[in-house]
């Protein structure tokens, strides 16, 4: 009895791990990089990446998409909430992710301060 049943432990483990991963992969739920909709609301501007969309940046920072779009500074209004940052450069030639980080930094500190300012 013992000689055979003991193999159940490792076999079940390997089966459950591969089975769960396989099922979630088939369902499209398995994601191993940040390029997924799961973005923490505690993102800082330093966490902004080129693959993120304007919407993801806004969600991640907990701000309105209008603020991000304004920081992007697209005069043609072609950039939308679903545009990925890496796709903005051909639309706004001066755009860079680093510049966007700085611009959002300035805006975030700017939006925080008015409430602190004496009226």
């Amino acid at each position, binding site marked *: *009895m013992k000689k055979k049943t003991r193999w159940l*432990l*490792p076999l*079940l*483990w390997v089966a459950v*791990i591969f089975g769960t991963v396989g099922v979630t992969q088939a369902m499209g*739920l398995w994601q191993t*990089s940040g390029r997924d909709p799961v973005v*923490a609301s505690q993102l800082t501007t330093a966490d902004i990446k080129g693959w993120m969309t304007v919407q993801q940046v806004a969600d991640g920072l907990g701000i309105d998409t209008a603020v991000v779009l304004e920081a992007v500074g697209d005069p043609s209004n072609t950039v939308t909430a679903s545009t990925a940052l890496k796709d903005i450069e051909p639309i706004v030639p001066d755009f860079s992710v680093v510049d966007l980080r700085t611009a959002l930094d300035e805006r975030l500190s700017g939006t925080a301060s008015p409430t602190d300012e004496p009226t």
Partner: protein
Amino acid sequence: MEASQPFHRGFTRHGFYGAMSTATNSGQRRPSKALQRLRDMRRTTLARRIVQLGFAVFILVTAFKHQSEEASGAASVDALCPFGAVETLLTWMTTGTLITKIHTSNLVLGLAVLIAILLAGNAFCGWICPLGTVQDWLWKAARALHLPQWRPAERTDRVLRQGRFVVLGLVMLMSYFSGQLWFADYDPYVTIFGLRWLFEWNEVIAIAVGITTLVLLGSLFVERLWCRYLCPLGAVFTVLGRFSFLRIRRNAEVCTDCELCDKPCPVGITVSKADPAVHPDCVGCLDCVAACPVKGALTVGPPVAVAALLNNSDQRTR
């Protein structure tokens, strides 16, 4: 292997088991029970080493691709660790979001581990975790080099084991308050298998490498030092392992108290005193089951009441 060489953690061929074969009527020599048991132990160890190696190599290859080819899309070691699900748990429960660098893969692996441990106890540490594998190799190397071993007294051991819960609490709180994968900068698993030290060097990596080196050096003198005293995932397994359906159980009526099962345990569990299930710190290596010379004394099975029910219905259907 030479006859005088220790063959399995303290057993010697002639010391414990005596003659390894018996003569049959036809004059041929048949392997004795002792030799069969020795083979069984070797088979268990070999199977475990192969599975461990498979997982370790997979993680290393993935990490190397992740570090060397940005466009490869290979996962980071952070994304392939079930502990990520624990690290993000407080944030997830309170805000519905995840801390940075945690992905659905962490949640999926966390779920898989939860199902597996409730079903079959903890075999993750004994068969899958690459950090456990590294410690096993170091221990083997240290024994080959005849380095001294340190076996803490029972009370000291019990106190030191609480270290895992301290680390777990610290990691969960720091992850929650920072919103980041805080532990990744100190975790020996990420340090060794993430391979960042191979591609870049800075102060953060230097600290991580320092901590990892201390842990690995310690593992030469205390078997599975990290697993026993520090691993936060091990702490989670110890808690969940109490509720496992299948566990290694000792049948006190059959057991002869020979204590042979105590010797091979890599995490220092006194299997011979199991009542009836072995301690939830068990990492599922199965060495004790293979070492047990008495049939039915140590078995992998469901709770005694469930086993009795199953036996009864089995007899009735015959």
